[in-house]
C-alpha cells in the first residue's frame, strides 16, 4: 500500500532540475559581473592617474574581460546540461 502511495507521489512530483539550474546560473553570473565592474573601475582609475596609458589599460582590460566572461559562459553551459529533464 505504502509503495503505491510513494509511486503516486513520485509521479506527481515536479521536476525541480530546471529551476535549480536557473538559480545556479544566476548565482554563477554574479561573480563575473563583479569582476567586469572591478576591471573597468581599475581602468577608469588608471586613466585618471595616467591618461597617456589609456590605450594600453583598455587593451589589458578587454583581455581580462574576455577571460572573466568565459567563467560566465562555463556557468551557462553547466546550466544547459543541468536543466535537462529527469530527476
Amino acid at each position, binding site marked *: 500500500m505504502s509503495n503505491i502511495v510513494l509511486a503516486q507521489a513520485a509521479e506527481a512530483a515536479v521536476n525541480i532540475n*530546471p529551476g535549480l539550474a536557473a538559480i545556479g*546560473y544566476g548565482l554563477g*553570473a554574479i561573480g*563575473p*559581473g563583479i569582476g*567586469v*565592474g572591478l576591471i*573597468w*573601475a581599475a*581602468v*577608469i582609475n588608471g*586613466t585618471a592617474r595616467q591618461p*597617456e*596609458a*589609456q*590605450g*594600453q*589599460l*583598455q*587593451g589589458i*582590460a*578587454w*583581455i581580462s*574581460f*574576455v*577571460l572573466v*566572461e*568565459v567563467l*560566465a*559562459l*562555463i556557468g*551557462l*553551459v553547466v*546550466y*544547459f*546540461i543541468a*536543466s*535537462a529533464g529527469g530527476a
Partner: protein
Amino acid sequence: MDPAQQTDTAEKASTDPHGDSVRRLAAAMLRTALVPGAVTAVLGAIVATVLFGVSGLVSALIGGVVAFGSSVLTIWLMRTTGGMNPMFVMVAALGGYIGKMIVLLVVMTLLGWVDGIHREALAFTMLATIMVWAGAEVVAFKRTKIPTIVPSD
C-alpha cells in the same frame, strides 16, 4: 584606397591613438582566434558525429555557431567602443555582458526544448570553442605590442 581617404584615416589615427591601439588589438585577436575556433568547432562536430550520429553533428554545429557569435560580439564591442572615454566603455562592457548573458540564456533555454538536440554534444563543443577562442585571444594579446601614447605637446 584613394588619397583623400588615406589622409582621412591617417588623420583619424593621429587624433585617436588610444582608440586605434584598441582597434588594432581587436583585429589581431579576431585574426588569431578565427582559425583555432573554427578548427575546434569542426573537431567537436566530428567527435559528436562519431559518438552520437546526426543529432550530435547538428547539436555540435549549433554549439559552435553560438560560441562563435558570443566571441565575435565581444570583439565587435571592443572595436565599437575603442577610443571612447573609459566610463562609457565600462557602461558598454557591462551592458554588453548583461545583454549577451540574457540572450544566451534565452537561446539555450529554447534549444533545451527542441527535440533531437543532443545536450552534451552542443554544450561541450560550445565550451571547447569558447575556451580555445579565449586562449587564442590571450596569445594575440601577448604578441601585440600596445604602445603607451606620449602626447606630443
